[in-house]
């Protein structure tokens, strides 16, 4: 209450100070903002979005409501943003799928690298390579040699085309240069169920999905895919230690439609940077096994560079796997 009065008086003061015209960007935002999440409510991306949106609301003085526009691997939500007015009142929080769908989907209704403006990176969720709890290999080098020797007998689960686990799996197989049978599921839940039940042997998935199961002893972890060891699992080696250069993370970013005024993107970026230092956001992110992006990463430039690099990174991997989502 006190805050909103403050915000209102601030806006009034601003309006008075800046005599006429050109003030629209400075006054932004003057009404409610919609943040599109291209996945269903309650999922990991939705959780990230709601935590950030709640914190940014405090800073912007306008409510950010999260709208879940799920379907077609997140491309329906991205298409919705591409068709929205570039006024800063419609945002999109999307993950790595923004980059991979450019290759996975051959008939997108928007051009990934042209249709959007950028606010900044939000977080980069690390992945873990996990297996059923009675899987024979004892450590990471053991796992790699076991997979190479038993390539015909092991099964690797993933949560469907374009899912984090699918991307990480493709990267792993391409690094091992070993073809392994993949067993696709519709979502992480069923894939994890069958991993716990020992129906499949191993998978690679985000810490948001694996941390509690690893801690509960229902599955075992072999490696993290982050450049550094994870704070929550300091004894867990990284893939990087065994296969130099191997790293995969599910990075999340906030986008606006192309043509959004630069001041608006800057204002949102500043607000995002503040949100990412909000103790509540930091704590909740830590519980999910991830850390907020730094202030340098939460900028339009960093997200633009990341998206361009990742589109280029994944194109050959996806094309080599020959799997498309349409």
């Amino acid at each position, binding site marked *: 209450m006190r805050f909103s009065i403050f915000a209102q008086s601030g806006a009034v003061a601003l309006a008075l100070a800046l005599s006429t015209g050109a003030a629209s960007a400075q006054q932004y935002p003057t009404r409610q903002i919609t943040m599109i999440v291209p996945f269903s409510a309650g999922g990991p991306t939705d959780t990230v979005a709601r935590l950030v949106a709640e914190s940014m609301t405090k800073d912007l003085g306008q409510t950010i409501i999260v709208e879940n526009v799920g379907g077609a691997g997140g491309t329906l939500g991205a298409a919705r943003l591409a068709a929205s007015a570039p006024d800063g009142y419609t945002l999109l929080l999307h993950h790595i799928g923004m980059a991979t769908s450019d290759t996975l989907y051959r008939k997108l209704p928007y051009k990934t690298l042209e249709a959007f403006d950028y606010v900044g990176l939000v977080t980069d969720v690390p992945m873990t390579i996990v297996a059923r709890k009675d899987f024979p290999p004892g450590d990471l080098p053991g796992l790699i040699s076991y997979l190479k020797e038993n390539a015909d007998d092991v099964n690797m689960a993933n949560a469907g085309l374009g899912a984090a686990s699918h991307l990480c799996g493709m990267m792993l197989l391409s690094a091992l240069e070993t073809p392994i049978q993949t067993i696709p599921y519709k979502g992480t839940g069923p894939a994890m169920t069958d991993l716990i039940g020992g129906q499949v042997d191993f998978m690679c998935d985000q810490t948001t999905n694996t941390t509690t199961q690893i*801690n*509960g002893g229902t599955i075992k972890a072999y490696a993290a895919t982050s450049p550094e060891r994870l704070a929550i699992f300091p004894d867990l080696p990284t893939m990087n230690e065994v296969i130099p250069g191997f790293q995969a993370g599910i990075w999340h970013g906030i986008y606006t439609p192309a043509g959004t005024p630069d001041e608006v993107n800057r204002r949102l970026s500043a607000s995002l940077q503040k949100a990412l230092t909000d103790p509540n956001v930091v704590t909740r992110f830590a519980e999910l096994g991830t850390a907020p992006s730094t202030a340098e990463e939460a900028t339009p430039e960093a997200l633009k560079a990341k998206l361009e690099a990742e589109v280029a990174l994944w194109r050959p991997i996806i094309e080599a796997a020959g799997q498309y989502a349409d």
Partner: protein
Amino acid sequence: MNIFDNLILGFQTAATPENLLFCLAGVLLGTLVGVLPGLGVTATIAMLLPLTFQLGPTSALIMLAGIYYGAQYGGSTTAILINLPGESSSAVTAIDGYQMARKGRAGTALAVAALGSFFAGCVSTLLVAIFAPPLTTVALKFGPAEYFSLMLLGLVASIALAHGSILKALAMVVLGLLLGLVGTDVFTGSERFIFGVREFADGLSFVALAVGVFGVAEILRNLEDEKTRTVLQTKVSNLWPSKEDFRRMAGPVLRGTGIGSLLGILPGGGAILASFAAYTVEKRISKHPEEFGKGAIEGVAGPESANNAGAQTSFIPLLTLGIPANPVMALMVGAMIIQGITPGPGVAAEKPDLFWGLIASMWIGNLLLLLLNLPLIGLWVKMLTVPYYILFPIIMAFCSVGVYSVNGNAFDLYSICAFGLVGYLMLKLKCEPAPLLLGFVLGPMMEENLRRAMLISRGDPTTFLTRPISAGLLIATVLVLLVVLLPSIRKRREEVFQEED
């Protein structure tokens, strides 16, 4: 060891005035939204989820669980009163429940549904409390091969859902299977039957299909001729079930509770089969199979009990493993994560008050629902006396809002219109929508599990016979087929139809 200590802790947590209030608010909200046709449980929870973010974790989960059962009760209400199931399980209730309503026994049907659900809720809550960990172990034994065999059994048994020609029922199952193929192939990413419409990439909407073939078709039929508006014209007789009704519902409620509790623990579609399986069983063992489809009280009592029992036991995989058994449970996982609780094997030990409080609140929620719904029955039944020219547009508006709210996708609205016409055509051809819905729901899951099992076995089909649980289910499937095809039984069916003619 101290199951009683745990339950006492649970009731202490759940019975604080604050939590009781949220439980009541949950079931009330759930019932209200569930009664709105077209709004299924998943849509309801998805929309109300943000409301709970401001509450404490225990209160939030108690309220969400309340919305879950509440919406299920509400969904049955519309299935019975206006033939509008909000989800697959109440599609079965609609078969006999709506016929009871047309005979002026809407009140009885609603009371039977409420009482049966309450009983099932009590038993399955106790099951969750006592057997959660061992039951989880059983559920984990179900791999792709077992699920395939289970779904095959379900599909074969679903033919018994029909009260007309077996051939037509089969045709409807197959049509449902075909409609279920629309979308993106999970395994290769190929698009199937989507005709360039990106909105169809994730398949047709179940809610749009159900609302169309059940609801819109029924409305069209009613508009056809003033005189066939049976629901309105029949005087609504006594609201409370008679002694005879109670006698007839006892067995179905007990069996439904058992079936529902067992199938509910299977993550990945077990619960969907519960109400269908209960209906099939009741019809098979009934002394009056000819009454099924014409307002048999057993056809409401069995599936409703199974449905509610399954709803409760589907919490088992969530609470013991952190695995969501269905989309609603996936939303609950989201709610827990946002509340800072990571659902998983550790929840019972780390947060005993939350774990047991939630279980105790299930029972309290069911009691509240019974107390809430029994007096409301009179009110719901009065809804039927609202003139149709007012009721129809309202129903259609709510259906459309409900369906649109699920994905914010205008294509789902066109789907309702298209499926409404399909449903009307089916009514004219005397084909029934329930087997179609079952085929639609089970088909894609069956295909997925079949292909997954074959991938794991490297293309060896004997995997279905060498895995004991799968083999047992396949044997049961053969038995059901034999029963359907056995000459004496077929003769009995024919006699039944002659009587009808």
